[in-house]
């Protein structure tokens, strides 16, 4: 490939070209003899600016730059699931085979395995009219995910030839169609899509179905819908990554896209380890059968970190269009924002708050707005749920990334340092967090768990808020002076905190708790609360109630009552009755 365009200047990951009119904005280019991947991010009459996705050490002025004529694309096709990619969809396992344990530059490997055969079933016949987004073939991608081949959104026409069912490779043509203008298009097992452009859908649907995570504090107190957005802000050590892992393992999405954006390498190897060992209870298959990993760790080039979020999102949208519910975990969006800042600084743009570029809010909103539950072009239902971790500088939630994220997400699961210090996990602070999905989701909860679920939740929330107000007093004068009724609120709130909100990710039963059990746990706590309230009203001191050990029972019911035996809650309630009866007699 010949080119006249050569490097003029180099500053970190930013390379400039002088006096050229060859390139267009956001075009993907190859830089230098070792063909490092880059993207055009600025053009003026004198200079064209490229951000390079790899280390630029050793580049020289005069080295060639090759255009590709297309924006940054990802290759979409079977083989994405159960794979691990870097930020620009290069498969890390293939890179390992090519260059060993350390990533060398200019590694050129196809994102997906081109030589693997897939067992394809054709779904159309000659003469059929195909519309954009329609399914023309399927193949089993993993044991639980069926890959559905979709007509690209820009294409429609009449089928002119089909191959028989059988084994095909990624680039083999299986269907040809003729569009309205008479041009013939070949449909293979793969297609490309620019990462910065949202894939189209037919219609957005309201957020009326919850994403069930099995985490009590989320499902009950701050639920998220399928197609919703959530932010998990928290300083270091508060358990952002742990929470994301838990959600990735247990939430009821069909497919998980896990983006490790500028985070630790050992964490990614932990995910690889754990997810391949962990069996999904619903399908009986390893978690990796439904997971895509994108690993752009903090020591990998910063520009690719910026791209990794979009790469993950585009893969998620592709599977959404097949009719799957996809959840994408972005850990952490702050690193992405910092990558924006770093590139912006190199471009010498005018900074806004704390050195972040002025376009930070618009980039964040573009990102979160790509979530949603939709009717796909082919008429089925799919969703993309975005759960983004935020790492606020100095644990200060007033910093720009947290504040702007708050504006564009509807769930805010604030992680709290003092809870984490006391090893209360998940350290989601019930006073600072919120979910805007309550009204959208309440009909679903009513229909599936009964009216009482919402009543219990409101009551529990009220008790926690009351406790927080009482604690202000206790901090000043101690708890002894409180009247018994208020002491009871404090005792009950403690049972809620320890017994309900706190959840043990390493306990076989407690790591995932079905909604039904969540409801019964609330019921048990409130049952004791109401009964005890009556007894206190009869002037029996609270100390005689606490000495019965019932609150301790509540704190341990999450372990004592297995998920599979909800009927044991009746025994617990009976036990409470008997114990309390001994007081009134």
């Amino acid at each position, binding site marked *: 490939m010949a080119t006249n365009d050569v490097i003029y*200047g180099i500053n970190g990951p930013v390379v400039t070209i002088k006096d050229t009119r060859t390139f267009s904005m956001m075009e993907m280019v190859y830089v230098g003899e070792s063909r490092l991947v880059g993207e055009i991010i600025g053009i003026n009459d004198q200079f064209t600016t490229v951000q390079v996705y790899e280390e630029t050490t050793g580049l020289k002025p005069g080295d060639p730059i090759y255009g590709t004529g297309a924006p940054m694309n990802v290759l979409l096709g079977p083989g994405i699931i159960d794979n691990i990619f870097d930020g620009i969809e290069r498969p890390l396992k293939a890179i390992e085979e090519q260059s060993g344990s350390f990533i060398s530059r200019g590694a050129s490997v196809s994102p997906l395995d081109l030589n693997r055969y897939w067992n394809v079933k054709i779904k159309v016949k000659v003469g059929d009219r195909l519309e954009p987004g329609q399914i023309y073939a399927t193949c089993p991608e993993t044991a639980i995910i069926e890959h559905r081949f979709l007509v690209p959104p820009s294409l429609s026409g009449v089928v002119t030839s089909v191959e028989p069912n059988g084994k095909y490779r990624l680039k083999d043509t299986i269907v040809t169609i003729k569009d309205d203008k008479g041009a013939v298009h070949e449909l293979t097992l793969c297609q490309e899509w620019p990462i910065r452009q949202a894939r189209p859908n037919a219609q957005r649907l309201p957020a009326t179905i919850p994403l069930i995570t099995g985490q009590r504090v989320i499902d009950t107190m701050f639920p998220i819908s399928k197609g919703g957005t959530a932010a998990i802000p928290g300083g270091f050590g508060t358990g952002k990554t742990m929470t994301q892992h838990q959600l990735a393992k247990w939430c009821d999405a069909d497919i998980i896209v896990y983006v490790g954006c500028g985070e*630790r390498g050992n964490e990614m190897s932990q995910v690889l380890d754990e997810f391949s060992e962990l069996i999904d209870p619903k399908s009986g298959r390893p978690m990796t059968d439904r997971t895509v990993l994108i690993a752009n*760790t*903090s020591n990998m080039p910063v520009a690719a970190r910026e791209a990794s979020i979009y790469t993950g999102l585009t893969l998620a949208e592709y599977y959404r269009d097949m009719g799957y519910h996809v959840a994408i975990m972005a850990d952490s969006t702050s690193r992405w924002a910092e990558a924006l800042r770093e590139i912006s*600084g190199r471009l010498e743009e005018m900074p806004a708050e704390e050195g972040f570029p002025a376009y930070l809010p618009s980039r964040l909103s573009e990102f979160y707005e790509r979530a949603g539950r939709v009717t796909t072009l082919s008429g089925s239902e799919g969703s993309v749920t975005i759960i983004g971790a935020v790492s606020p500088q100095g644990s200060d939630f007033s910093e720009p990334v947290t504040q702007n994220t708050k504006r564009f997400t509807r769930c805010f699961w604030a992680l709290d340092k003092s809870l984490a210090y006391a*090893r209360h996990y998940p350290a989601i602070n019930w006073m600072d967090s919120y979910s805007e999905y309550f009204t959208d989701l309440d009909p679903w909860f009513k229909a599936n768990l009964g009216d009482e679920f919402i009543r219990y939740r409101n009551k529990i929330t009220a008790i926690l808020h009351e406790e927080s107000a009482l604690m202000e007093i206790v901090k000043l004068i101690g708890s002894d002076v409180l009247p018994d009724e208020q002491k009871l609120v404090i005792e009950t709130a403690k049972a809620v905190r320890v017994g309900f909100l706190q959840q043990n990710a390493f306990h076989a039963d407690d790591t995932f708790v079905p909604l039904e059990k969540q409801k019964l746990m609330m019921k048990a706590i409130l049952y004791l609360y109401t009964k005890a309230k009556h007894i206190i009203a009869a002037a029996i001191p609270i100390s005689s109630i606490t000495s019965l050990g019932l609150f301790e029972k509540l704190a341990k019911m999450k372990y004592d009552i297995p998920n599979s035996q909800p009927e044991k809650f009746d025994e617990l309630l009976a036990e409470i009755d008997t114990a309390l009866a001994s007081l009134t007699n």
Partner: protein
Amino acid sequence: MILDYVGVKEINGSLIVLDDVEGASYEEMVDIRLDNGTFRHGRIVQIEGKRVVVQVFEGTKSISLDNTRTRLKCRPMELALSPEIMGRVFSGAGTPIDGFGDVYPVKRANVNGTPMNPVSRVYPRNYINTGISTIDTLMTLIRGQKLPIFSGSGMKHNELAVQIVRQAKISDSGDNKFGIVFAAMGVKNDVADYFRRSFDESGVLSRVVMFLNLANDPIIERTLTPRCALTAAEYLAFECNMHVLVIMTDMTSYAEALREFSSSKGEIPGRKGFPGYLYSDLASLYERAGMIKGSKGSVTQIPILTMPNDDITHPVPDLTGYITEGQIVLDRSLEGQGLYPPVSVLPSLSRLMKDGIGDGYTRSDHQALANQLFAAYARVQDARSLASVIGEEELSPVDKKYMEFGKLFEQYFVNQGYSENRTIEQSLDLGWKLLSTLPRTELDRVDDELLDQHYISDPEQLNFDDFKSAAGSDDED
């Protein structure tokens, strides 16, 4: 063709600008010869056509616009490596300064390293027994981990680091040799000397590679010091199959050097004037810890940083905490009470601990015990803040128990002798003993089975005489 470029176009801080340079490549090394015959070294940090910006490691003092000749060396910054580097002392830029001459290189490696492929990493699971109760029990150090010590000026972080080195049984692992790489960045001469002496006394000096950039050495060299050290560590670990412990002190000085360099380059500053890429830059150092498939060695990092004004939200500790796998935080008030090591338990953490402890590693009750100790000690803080308002007398009986527990915990568990090496069993048993001073019903993080096994209900057995040695001062009153 080797060309000398005479003179410079511009001098700014530690940077010089050359014009009309042909064929310079990014991050290439240059030699600068002054008219008085002395040499300086530099690196190209920015290129714009034929205009080249060079960072001079030794500083630009006495460079004028036309008293230099600059020669491009056609290669990036590399470190000469061979197994012989063990026991040697290098400058912050990797030149030998112990008077034993140059290293005969088996290999030269770019000091920037290349990122480890995440799929090639082995998830670290083997714990390192440091013999220090707080660390072993509550923030277990795992081989291949990066676990920094967050300290402040004047606290005993150096002693702690030396004690870890001395007691860590990294030599346990069969025929795998162990090594220590020590990188000093902007530390005082005395501190560097303290480490050298301590390594000597514990008989490991021949296994230490030292990179010294002292407080009065040039700052540009300081930005290279950890990179040289980690390049040496990676070589020893992954090519010589050694278990390498890297101690880097002081990361705050390193970050400040980076800030100084960044501002002289005219870059847009981020928080507190540090460059916007501080996170990426620190990550490119810390992420070089770990283990890889196909190699028996490992790189474990213990970076030490002093928090300016003891402020954990300062950008350096803050960003470090986001990258490293936990942190050991030292506390000035514990230090003030004469407790050693002054480990502030609550904000300290080891992220890799959960998979490296328990059955087959330490003991099956380890995780539960650690959780309960954290929870109970967090409760102690509540009781203390309440007591500071209403007085200890007015506390409820349970809170009083917690006050007592807190005192014992600090006196016997946190506090231990500088040369006291406790086994993991000793530490865990001590933990149970301390918890047993609380009413059994308070221990809600542990299930009944474990309590039956470990809870000591007989108050007679709750004496801590075995651990008196550490609390020697008590004997005198």
